């Protein structure tokens, strides 16, 4: 069972408080993603859960038991590191078997489990190789294999895909999601990439400077961000923010509209501006429009928008999809 609860957890390095008091509940079987810009404390938070760092104050419960003082080796968690952290002097087989060897599992059982894991991860042909002879994706799989043979209470992933190239990243993302579907084990996944967060998570925890900015399902965060930080962090391209007079019309300090919620036309609309750079992706086109009296806005048009650099265009926001924020950056109901 992998229910994890953080109660008033704080972490300071010397005088610097990295994580102010934080509470979080992670249900059994959930796929939780910690996301935030670099330096937001997400990796530190994961290491606190792993036991690789001490909490400064507060409590960490695993399955209802206080695990705050339990050493990492006894917490029943498995971790996949950003650098994979494979043991370079051991074969793939020995790497995957290492946790079992530490748990004094007998050799026959060890081999059976290693081979089962290798089968799931398509590593059967590579069992006798050294990590140095594997590609990045294969190494990643070995790291995952090492984690699954332990049958842990929960998996911890620390930016596991950031060292892979873009195509491989998409593949591994799917594989990890499938793994979660089949194992139904709690997974905590740290990333700075909001796309990974959106595509994989049951629950996203957005962190900003050690604080939880918002917790919710991907679509909740997308639809109703509770503050400007989450609004700007989730979604790609980024949400457009408009301040001043135009925001005032909606009774807010700042308003935000996602690029996909702006309608483009040539013959009339709320705002008017000049088209700047147009980025053609084929399925979509991102247009950077300099709107008179407002500034630069990004607009997402379906397909190939027939507009070029320097053209005049009209833009209309979807009134239902305008997010309003007060001067502290909090969303207005």
């Amino acid at each position, binding site marked *: 069972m992998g229910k994890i609860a953080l109660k008033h957890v704080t972490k300071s390095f010397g005088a610097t408080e990295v994580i102010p008091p934080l509470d979080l509940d992670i249900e059994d079987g959930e796929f939780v993603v910690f996301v935030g810009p670099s330096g937001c404390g997400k990796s530190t938070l994961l290491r606190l859960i792993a036991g690789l760092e001490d909490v400064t104050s507060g409590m960490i419960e695993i399955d209802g038991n206080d695990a705050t003082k339990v050493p990492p080796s006894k917490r029943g968690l498995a971790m996949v590191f*950003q650098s994979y952290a494979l043991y370079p002097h051991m074969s793939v087989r020995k790497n995957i078997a*290492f946790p079992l060897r530490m748990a004094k599992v007998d050799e026959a059982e060890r081999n059976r489990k290693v081979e089962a894991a290798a089968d799931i991860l398509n590593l059967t042909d590579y069992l006798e190789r050294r990590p140095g002879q594997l590609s990045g994706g294969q190494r990643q799989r070995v790291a995952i294999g090492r984690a699954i043979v332990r049958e842990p209470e929960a998996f911890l992933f620390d930016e596991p895909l950031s060292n892979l190239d873009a195509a491989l990243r998409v593949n591994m993302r799917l594989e990890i999601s499938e793994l979660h579907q089949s194992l139904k084990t709690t997974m905590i996944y740290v990333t700075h990439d909001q796309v990974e967060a959106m595509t994989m998570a049951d629950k996203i925890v957005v962190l900003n400077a050690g604080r939880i900015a918002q917790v919710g399902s991907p679509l909740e965060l997308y639809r109703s961000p509770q503050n400007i930080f989450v609004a700007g962090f989730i979604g790609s391209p980024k949400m457009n923010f408009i301040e001043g007079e135009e925001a005032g019309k909606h009774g807010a300090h700042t308003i935000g509209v996602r690029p996909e919620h702006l309608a483009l036309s040539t013959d009339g609309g709320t705002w008017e501006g000049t088209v700047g750079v147009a980025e053609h992706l084929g399925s979509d086109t991102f247009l950077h429009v300099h709107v008179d009296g407002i500034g630069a806005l990004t607009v997402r048009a379906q397909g190939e928008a027939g507009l070029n650099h320097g053209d005049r265009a009209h833009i209309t926001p979807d009134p239902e999809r305008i997010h309003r924020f007060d001067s502290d950056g909090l969303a207005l109901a």
Partner: protein
Amino acid sequence: MARAVTNNRKAFNTALAWLVGLLIFFPILWTVLTSFKTEAQAINDPPLFLFFDWTLENYSVVQERSDYLRYLWNSVFIAGGSTLLGIVIAVPAAWSMAFVPSRRTKDVLLWMLSTKMLPAVGVLYPIYLLFIQLGLLDTRIGLTIVLMLINLPIIVWMLYTYFREIPAEILEAARMDGASLREEILYVLTPMAVPGIASTILLNFILAWNEAFWTLNLTAANAAPLTAFIASYSSPEGLFYAKLSAASTMAIAPILILGWFSQKQLVRGLTFGAVK
């Protein structure tokens, strides 16, 4: 990109470098050659280079007269023992400094190095007295301990530099995989650091082998290693060039061969990683 160099230039470099290299190596070469001469040939005027009657006689005489093998065994015991003992004590210390560094780590390391600068002669008599008290004078164990202590700072330093290159994440992974501290060091850190540990052992073995202050002053007949064996040839009656050469060759050959194998690691080891 290295620039293209003309063959003339390269030939010139080669000739010059070989000349200088041979000049530097010459004393050793000359010693080895002389060890195969008879005493008369050794002081022949003009000196003989290659064309003399090669003989192995000197080697057997040296062994007979001074019991070379016993000195050799003492050298191996003392150098090997002090190095291994040092490694056993230094590995945990270096692990601590490399993976759990604190603000004091650097100070501790520098302090350790500074104990190397303590002039041995300043504490010779106290050690001498303590050795008599403890019954360690002229014993292999006593000398092993002293050489271990004088090389310990270097061993710790070298291991520290090598350990620091091992990513901490791998040790953390071992911890997550359920390894205890002992298992982490035994199964993960040590095998990964094998090249570094090997060159540390090699270099410290060489340093201990050649150490010539404590080995000369704390031994007499029983525990004397090769340094003392050779020093016994400095008295006038031992002045036979061919035999001196044979003895010298026997004293330096093992370490010379070992040293050539480790010359690459030597730089990193002795500079504590400060020059790569």
